[in-house]
């Protein structure tokens, strides 16, 4: 069987790629995609831990299911906000969304 640590390394890499995407990408949609990668890394972690450490319990996959649902809701709201910004200003680049700053 594949050792647990492989899954954890993979998920840590995925998380880092997602975080880099959130911090470095300019496009609002691409930032949201970065967040999705981070959440998927969390899901891989949870499923791997559940399968290898406590396969008899239900908490692990219950957690994964709720992360799925909430991530979908979050993206729906995010896209709606991007769309309402786009309608007002014809841009979805995070650099140009800069009315508010000190």
């Amino acid at each position, binding site marked *: 069987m594949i050792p647990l640590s492989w899954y*954890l390394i993979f998920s840590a890499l995925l*998380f880092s790629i*997602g*975080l880099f995407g*959130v911090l470095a990408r300019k496009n*609002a949609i691409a*930032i*949201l995609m*970065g*967040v999705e990668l*981070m*959440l998927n*890394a*969390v899901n891989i*972690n*949870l499923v791997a*831990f*559940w399968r290898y*450490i*406590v396969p008899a*319990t239900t*908490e*692990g996959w*219950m*957690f994964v299911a*709720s*992360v799925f649902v*909430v991530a979908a*809701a*979050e993206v729906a*709201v*995010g896209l*709606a*906000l*991007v769309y*309402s*910004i786009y*309608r*007002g*200003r014809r841009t979805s680049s*995070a650099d140009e*969304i800069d*009315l*508010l*700053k*000190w």
Partner: protein
Amino acid sequence: MFLTLLPEITLVVLAFVVLTTDLALDRQSRAFLPYLTAAGMLLAVIFTIVFALPGDKPQLIFGGMLRHDWLTFVFRLVFLFGALATVLFSAGWERVARRGEYYVLIITSTLGMMLMGASADLVMLFLAIETTSIPLYILAGFITEDDKSTESGFKYLLFGAMTTAIMLYGFSMLYGFSGSTNLYWIAGALMSGELPFISMMGTVILVMAGFAFKVSMVPFHFWAPDVYEGSPTPIAGFLSTASKAAGFAVIIRVLLTAFPLEAFGGVDWTMMMAIAAALTMSVGNLIALAQTNIKRLLAYSSVAHAGYILMGIAAASELGGLSVVFYIIVYLVTNLAAFGVVAVAERTLGSNDLEAYDGLSRRSPALALVLLISLLSLAGVPPMGGFIAKVLVFAAAVEANMVWLAVVGILNAIVGLYYYLIVLKRVYLFRSEEEDKPVPIPRPSAVALTVCLIAILVFGTIIAPWFDYSGIAAGALF
């Protein structure tokens, strides 16, 4: 068991009632919706006090998902009061006053906060945090025709989604370490002493990222001024009080139960929190000095106040817990009053720039008085509640052998006093050309402001009962 959840059930029912009433009414009679919402919330307050009073022993309900104790009880009242005041301020704010979905979102968010205050399980905690946050993202960007509002909603969402994902990664680590999502189980697993220090501390940092965002702790405070400036003013008040209180409720519960100090040995999270507290209040206060917009000024001031509250958490003692609860209660009424004044003044002044506040005392003496009392309370001047709250957090820091932190806090209080007085100088001493135009106060806002004003003065003068209640609430953690 269902009686203990009756306040939450009331809110769910209320959300559906408001949504259907909104469909049935025409545009004119929708002005009645905020009062319907407020009445429902008042009912939830009554249910909390009558049916959902916790017993002597804290109990875990719904399969260990929620913990029903005095801390839950006190925070429930705090969130409901914050939501009530926000709804009343919104009733006088024309752009949102007649929008049914606006009130439904406030109700849903309050429901999430009440669950946040009670969560004893990571799954529940995550769901509660998201139930609070997602409606708040929409509320911040609610005025779609205003570019600033949509932008603030979007910035709030991006910061929120990123920090929540980091926090969840920490949660998944905790699950891996302990094989359970229950906070008390996790504490037991960490206490076994088999985990290396670095992985425990790393997990604390990951988990704290999400919580720090909710309370705008440095370095996760960047969103606060932008979001407060752009969002509808009553919502800015809601974000800076109830939402922040929910974050602190989670921080004290999770840090004290899931990460017991004994598990660390020597260096633990108290030092990290102390440094974060010192940074948070210094950054908040120093940047506030340079602000020319009252909403941004109050935003940085609320960052600074998060720093003061973190002092009580860094103490990690019973006095520390007590001071946190007391500070949150006082800060809630004080900051609600301050943002309430801004929301009322904005209707007539048409601007949130500090210049617009010149000569406000001649245009509306009552409004100026509320602003005076609330800003002095924020600054920590006796006999207002803010003074006692500050004394308690400083005392907690000194008791925990963190005298340096108390000194930093006192220096910061002086800086804070300076910029609050600059606002008051404009309000009371400056003259403007529009002094003959009065600033009317809508009746619902007047009611909410009066209640907040009385509360600020009562918390500052009759201290003993509130001190005792905060002590009982904090006692549920030890």
